[in-house]
């Protein structure tokens, strides 16, 4: 996978590209560790360029959410492809994450 980063004010937008499976979830987790050490509080994970996420990837999404809740930050997931949303629904993750249809709606969540 590839992760492109941009910043909009205080919001970090991570564009996740490719797939998050057992192998690539390591990279995703490294990015998470970096975000934690930088003390970022507002993060959007933009998912439109992701083809799929397996349970190894869900683990990292959950780490992200737990951390952001702990530090009083906010995490938003935007533009999730159909198959990925299906995995979130099946896992009961759709109800614990803030998920928006578009990146703009994701950004609006922070206003």
């Amino acid at each position, binding site marked *: 996978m590839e992760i492109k980063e941009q910043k909009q004010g205080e919001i970090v937008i991570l564009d996740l590209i490719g*797939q998050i*499976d057992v*192998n690539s979830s390591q990279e995703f987790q490294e990015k998470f560790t970096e975000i934690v050490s930088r003390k970022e509080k507002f993060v959007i994970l933009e998912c439109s360029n992701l083809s799929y996420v397996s349970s*190894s990837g869900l683990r990292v999404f959950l780490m992200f959410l737990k951390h952001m809740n702990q530090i009083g930050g906010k995490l938003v997931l935007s533009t999730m492809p159909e*198959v990925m949303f299906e995995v979130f629904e*099946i896992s*009961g993750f759709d109800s614990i994450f803030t998920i928006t249809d578009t990146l703009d709606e994701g950004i609006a969540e922070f206003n």
Partner: protein
Amino acid sequence: MHKIEIKNKLPELENVVKFLGEFGKENNILPKIVSIYNIVLDEILSNTIMYGYEDKEEHTIAIEFELSKSMLICKVTDDAVEFDPTKVAKPDLSLDVESKRIGGLGIHIVKKMTDYFSYKRDNNKNIVLFKKKIS
């Protein structure tokens, strides 16, 4: 029938992703279906590779695909310790953020995303078969 064999090492799963991508293109299978098969195989194969072997030897895992009229059939055969994934208990999905666990979720995803999922132990081998409608 199309077959790929891999060793019991996690990086080998990338070969499965590549193989399935090419197989999907050649047979005009929707990218969405290819993604679902990638998810299912990631769950099943990573489970076997991480927890299925008690020795440090190299083992082979065979993954076979067969296309019928409306179904894509996939069979995974390995010589790992006996393990029936169809009997894995459903995880508690109602837990809140702090109590949520990933354990058991992978197999739950497999069960929900396939139309047919079976297991048998034959000749000291685990044989997992799953199918999904492709049209």
